[in-house]
C-alpha cells in the first residue's frame, strides 16, 4: 500500500538529485582551468523499490522509490597518475642535462673564430710568423700577445665551467628545500584526507591537490607511490619513504670540498635517486665522463701538457739577449687560474737554437743570432706532435674531440628531452581525456539536469494537484 504522499517524496528526491547535478556541474565549470583538477560527476542510483502487493494483494509490480545520490566521483585514475609522475621525472632529468649542456656549448663558442680553437690557431700562427722572422720584435710581441689571449681563453672557459658547477650545486640545494616543503604539504594533505574520508565520502578536491603536489615533487626527484587502505599516499625515493604513514623524513645537502651529496637527515645515508632533476645535477657534478669536473680536468690536462712541452723546448733555446734556460709559461699545478705567460719582454723569447759566445769569461758575454728561429720552429711543430691520449692525439685533435664529445652529449640530451616531451604530452593528453573538463559537455549536462529539475517540479505540481482534488473535491456530495 503506497503512502498518499509517495509521489511528492519521489519528486523531492529528483529535485535534490537535479540540484546536486547542477552543483557538481558548476564546480566542474568553475575549475575547468584549475591545475590538477579532475572532473567530478554524480553517481546516482534508483532508491530501494517497494513491493506494492505487500499484503498478497493483486496490484502489479514493484514501485520505484525515486533516485538517491550515492556519491560524487572523481575521474582521477591512479595508474595514469603514476605514469604522469614518472614521465615528469624523466623529462626533468633530461631537461636539466640539456640546459646545462646548452650553457656549456654557449661557453665553447665553437665552431667559430672566437672559441679556444681559434685562440690556439692564432697562437700557432704567430709562432709560424716568428719562425719566418725571428729578428722581428713585432713578431715576438705578437707571439706574447696571442699566448696571453690563449691562456686567458683557457682560464675563461675553466672559470665559467666552475661557475656552472656552482650554479648546479645551488640548484640541488634549492630543489632539496623544495622537496622537503612538498613532502610536508603532502603529509599534511594525507592527514586531512584520512580525516575527511573516515566518514565514508571521498575527498576528491583534497586528492587533486595532493596529486598536484606529487607531480611537482616528481620533477625534482623520481618517486614511487602506494596508497594505503586508509587513503594515505606513501611517497618514497629509491625505496625509502619520504612521506610515510606517520610523517615525513627530511633530506639534507652536504657540501664537502666541492662534492655535493644529498642524504637522509635521520640516517645520514646517501639518497639513491633514480631520476628527476636532482639526479641529473648530481651526475653532472660527479666524476667520470660527461661531467663538468671531467671537462675541467681535460682542459687542465691540455694546458699542462702544452705548457710543459713548450717550456722543455724553450728552455733549450736562446733569447735575443743570448740568454738561455728561460721558461715560456709558468704553470700552477693547483689550478688553471695560476697559469700565465712567464715572459713579458719580446727579447726574452728564446727563438734561436744558437748564440755567439763573445767572451767565455766570468760572467760570460753572449751575442744573439738574430736570424736563427730553430727553437721557435720546434715549438711551432708542437702543433703536430701527438702528445695526448697515449700519443695518439695532437693538442688540436684532443681539443676537437673534446668539443665533439660535448656536442654529442648535448645532442643526446636534446634528443632525449624531445622524446620525453612527446611522451609527457601523450600521457598528459591521456589524462586530460579522462579528467579534463569539457565545457560543452558540462553545458549539455547542465541542460539535462535543468530539464530533470523542471520535470521533477512538474511532477510535484501534479502530485499536489492530485491531493488538492482529493482534499477539496471529495466528500462534498450534496453540499
Amino acid at each position: 500500500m503506497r503512502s498518499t504522499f509517495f509521489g511528492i517524496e519521489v519528486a523531492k528526491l529528483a529535485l535534490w538529485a537535479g540540484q546536486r547535478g547542477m552543483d557538481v556541474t558548476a564546480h566542474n565549470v568553475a575549475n575547468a582551468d584549475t591545475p590538477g583538477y579532475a572532473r567530478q560527476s554524480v553517481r546516482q542510483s534508483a532508491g530501494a523499490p517497494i513491493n506494492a502487493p505487500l499484503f498478497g494483494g493483486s496490484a502489479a509490480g514493484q514501485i520505484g522509490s525515486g533516485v538517491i545520490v550515492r556519491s560524487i566521483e572523481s575521474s582521477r585514475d591512479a595508474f595514469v597518475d603514476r605514469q604522469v609522475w614518472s614521465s615528469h621525472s624523466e623529462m626533468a632529468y633530461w631537461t636539466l642535462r640539456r640546459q646545462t649542456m646548452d650553457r656549456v656549448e654557449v661557453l665553447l663558442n665553437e665552431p667559430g673564430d672566437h672559441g679556444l680553437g681559434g685562440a690556439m690557431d692564432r697562437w700557432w700562427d704567430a709562432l709560424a710568423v716568428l719562425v719566418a722572422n725571428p729578428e722581428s720584435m713585432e713578431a715576438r710581441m705578437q707571439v706574447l700577445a696571442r699566448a696571453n689571449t690563449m691562456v686567458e681563453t683557457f682560464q675563461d672557459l675553466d672559470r665559467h665551467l666552475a661557475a656552472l658547477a656552482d650554479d648546479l650545486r645551488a640548484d640541488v640545494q634549492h630543489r632539496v628545500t623544495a622537496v622537503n616543503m612538498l613532502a610536508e604539504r603532502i603529509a599534511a594533505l594525507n592527514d586531512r584526507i584520512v580525516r575527511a574520508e573516515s566518514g565514508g565520502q571521498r575527498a576528491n578536491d583534497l586528492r587533486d591537490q595532493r596529486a598536484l603536489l606529487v607531480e611537482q615533487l616528481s620533477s625534482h626527484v623520481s618517486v614511487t607511490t602506494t596508497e594505503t587502505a586508509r587513503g594515505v599516499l606513501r611517497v618514497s625515493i629509491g625505496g625509502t619513504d619520504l612521506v610515510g604513514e606517520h610523517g615525513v623524513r627530511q633530506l639534507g645537502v652536504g657540501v664537502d670540498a666541492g662534492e655535493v651529496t644529498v642524504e637522509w637527515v635521520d640516517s645520514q645515508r646517501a639518497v639513491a635517486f633514480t631520476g628527476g632533476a636532482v639526479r641529473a645535477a648530481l651526475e653532472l657534478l660527479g666524476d667520470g665522463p660527461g661531467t663538468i669536473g671531467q671537462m675541467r680536468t681535460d682542459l687542465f690536462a691540455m694546458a699542462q701538457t702544452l705548457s710543459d712541452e713548450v717550456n722543455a723546448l724553450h728552455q733549450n733555446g736562446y733569447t735575443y739577449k743570448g740568454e738561455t734556460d728561460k721558461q715560456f709559461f709558468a704553470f700552477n699545478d693547483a689550478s688553471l687560474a695560476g697559469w700565465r705567460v712567464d715572459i713579458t719582454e719580446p727579447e726574452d723569447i728564446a727563438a734561436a737554437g744558437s748564440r755567439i759566445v763573445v767572451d767565455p769569461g766570468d760572467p760570460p758575454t753572449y751575442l744573439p743570432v738574430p736570424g736563427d728561429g730553430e727553437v721557435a720552429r720546434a715549438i711551432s711543430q708542437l702543433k703536430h706532435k701527438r702528445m695526448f691520449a697515449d700519443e695518439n692525439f695532437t693538442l688540436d685533435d684532443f681539443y676537437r674531440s673534446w668539443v665533439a664529445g660535448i656536442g654529442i652529449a648535448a645532442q643526446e640530451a636534446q634528443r632525449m628531452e624531445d622524446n620525453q616531451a612527446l611522451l609527457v604530452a601523450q600521457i598528459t593528453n591521456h589524462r586530460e581525456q579522462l579528467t579534463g573538463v569539457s565545457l560543452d559537455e558540462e553545458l549539455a549536462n547542465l541542460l539535462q539536469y535543468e530539464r530533470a529539475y523542471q520535470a521533477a517540479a512538474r511532477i510535484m505540481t501534479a502530485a499536489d494537484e492530485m491531493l488538492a482534488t482529493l482534499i477539496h473535491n471529495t466528500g462534498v456530495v450534496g453540499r
Partner: protein
Amino acid sequence: MRVTQGMVVNRFLRDLQNSERRLFNLQGKVSSGTRLQRPSDDPIDAARVMRFDSEDTEISRYLANAREARDWLGATESALNEAYEALTRAQEVALRANAGSLPNDALEALGTEVDVLVQHLLQVVNTAYKGRYLFSGTLTLNAPYEVVWKDVNDVNASDIVLTGEEIEDDQTGTVNVRVLEYQGNDGEIRHQIGMSVNVRANITGDAAFGDAFAVLAKLRNDLLEANVDNLDEYVAGIDEAIGNVVRLRSDIGGRMNRTELAAERLGVISLQIESLRSELADTDVARALVDLHAAELSLQTSMAMAARMFQTSLLDFLR
C-alpha cells in the same frame, strides 16, 4: 575519445611551440649563413669544420711563407745576376791586362776599374731585404762583408787584403791594412711551406762570393801595382767564381720553382678546404628559405585553426 578544451589548448600550444622553435632555428641558419651554430647541431661535422678552419689558418701561413721565400730567393737571384755581370766585366779586364804589352798607367787604370767592381760587388752582396741581409747566414742584422783594419802581422793567407791604404800607428809602429771580412755565419734560413716541407731561402755570402772577392782583390792589388805575373791564375780564378755564381743561380732558380709549385698546390688545397668547409657548414640557402616558408605557413595555419576552434562553443547555439 573524449576531447576537452584543455586538450585542444594544450595541443595548440605544443604545436605552436614546435613551429616557433623550427622557425627560430631556420631563421638562425639563414641569418648566420651557417648550419653549425653550436657543436650539437652536428658534433662530427662541427669537429671537421674546426679542423678545416685550423688547417686553413696553417695553409694561409704556408702560402705567406712561400711568398716570402719566393721574394727572398728573387732578391738573391738578382744579386747573383749583378755579381755575374761584375765578374764578367772583371774577366774582360783581366783578359785585357793579360793580353800583354800594356803600359803601367793603363794597368793601373784597369786596376782602378777592378777596384770599382770590388766596391760594386760589395754593395751587391750587402743587399738587404726587408731589413735583413740576404747573405749573412742567420746573423741577418750584420752586413755580410765589411772592410776592417787589421795589423799587418796578423794577416794570413786566407784574408782578403786590399792594399794601397796602409796606416802606420805613430805610437806603436804597427802597420794596419784594409781587409775584407765576412761577418756572417753559415746558418740556414728555412721557410716552412708545408707540414714538413721547408725551403732554404738563403745562400751565405762566404760560399757565394768568398772566392770571387779573394781573386778580385788580388787582381786589383796586382794591377794597381802593375804586376802582371799572376794574371793567368786570376783569369782561371774568375772563371771558377763565375761558374760558382752560375751554379748557385740555377740552384736558386730550382728552389724558386719548387716554391712556386708548392704555393700553387697550397692554393689548390686551400680552395678544396674552403669548398669542403662550405659544404659542411654553410646553410643551403634555397633549401632553408623553402623550409622557412613552409614553417611560416604551418604556423599561420595552426593559428588560424586555433582562432576558429576557440570560437566554437555549445554556448553559441543555446538560447
